[in-house]
């Protein structure tokens, strides 16, 4: 087996839960967008180029309101600010990735980040190709779903209620395996508890930013206090 096929064979099974989620959630995005009077090109290009689920839904609303590109830019910064943490986490892992690096960064959605940062890539598997396949497959699922939804429009209806739990299940499963593979559980607990407390205090729309600030502040404190081995 050559290195491309080996990397693909390792990456593909890990993306299957995301395939299910992205095809159907992407479809609902496509259906929603064309139901607002846009052609199928809109969900296609927005899913391909923005490639950040919640911001794509928000952009449909922005397209229907008054022209405000600066507002759109700031909204995207706020909604996606969690990506800053992904970048800091992947600084080392993406080193030496050459031409693949810009695409790996471009396509770093929650799900691709989760897999690329947590997967125990077996020795002998090319890390760069593995991460490239994970990222590209996930984007393929999402764009395919959004475009299909845009083409089929409201003529499709299936009961997918509860399917979005697949993403929660994915994140919880990765959380558990990271927990089992590490001796120091403080960072994991800090992330979980601080976010939960902020959710209770600030509500579902506002809690991410304060969570991130508190987590960063705590870890910076850990750094200067010393004694924590990551």
């Amino acid at each position, binding site marked *: 087996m050559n290195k491309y096929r080996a990397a693909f064979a390792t990456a593909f099974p890990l993306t299957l*839960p995301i395939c299910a989620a992205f095809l159907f959630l992407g479809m609902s995005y496509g259906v929603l967008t064309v139901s607002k009077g846009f052609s199928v090109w809109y969900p296609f*290009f*927005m899913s391909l*180029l*923005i490639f*950040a689920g919640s*911001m794509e839904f928000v952009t449909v609303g*922005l*397209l229907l309101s008054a*022209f*405000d*590109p*600066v507002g759109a830019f700031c909204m*995207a*910064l706020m909604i*996606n600010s*969690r*990506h*800053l*943490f*992904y*970048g*800091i*986490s992947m*600084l080392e892992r993406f*080193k030496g990735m050459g031409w693949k*690096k810009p695409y790996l960064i*471009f396509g770093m959605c*929650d799900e691709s980040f*989760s897999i690329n940062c947590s997967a125990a890539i077996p020795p002998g598997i090319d890390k760069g190709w593995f991460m490239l396949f994970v990222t590209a497959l996930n984007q393929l699922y999402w764009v395919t779903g959004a475009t299909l939804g845009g083409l089929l429009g409201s003529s499709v209806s299936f009961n997918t209620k*509860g399917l979005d*739990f697949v993403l*929660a*299940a994915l994140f*919880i*499963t990765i*959380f*558990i*395996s990271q*927990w089992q593979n590490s001796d120091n559980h403080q*960072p*994991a*607990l*800090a*992330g*979980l508890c*601080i*976010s*939960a407390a902020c*959710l209770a205090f600030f509500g*579902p729309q506002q*809690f*991410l930013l304060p969570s991130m600030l508190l*987590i*960063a502040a705590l*870890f*910076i404190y*850990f*750094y200067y206090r010393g004694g924590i081995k*990551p």
Partner: protein
Amino acid sequence: MTLTQQIITIAAAVLGTMATRFLPFLLFPAHKKTPPLVLFLGKLLPPAVMGMLVIYSLKDVQLLGGTHGLPEALAIALLLALQLTLRNALITIGVSTVFYMLLVQKIFI
């Protein structure tokens, strides 16, 4: 909005999103020495971010009204049992999601 205004709006959304993804790599390029504090954060953040994503993916669960988070709690309990015994992520994610869909579609309506 005209087509041009729509394209500019979408471009602004793309630019804002990409700024959040590329900024750390632009601030700390590979050919320069990354500050030790940032390296330290890069090692501590992944487990914390997964914890944050767990909460993020459950943020719309209604604990005080509706089904009081019962279907979510049951599905997560099944997920934990499966993952701690079988340790097969695909089975864990697949079975617990189908179980959750059955719960919210057939039982907790």
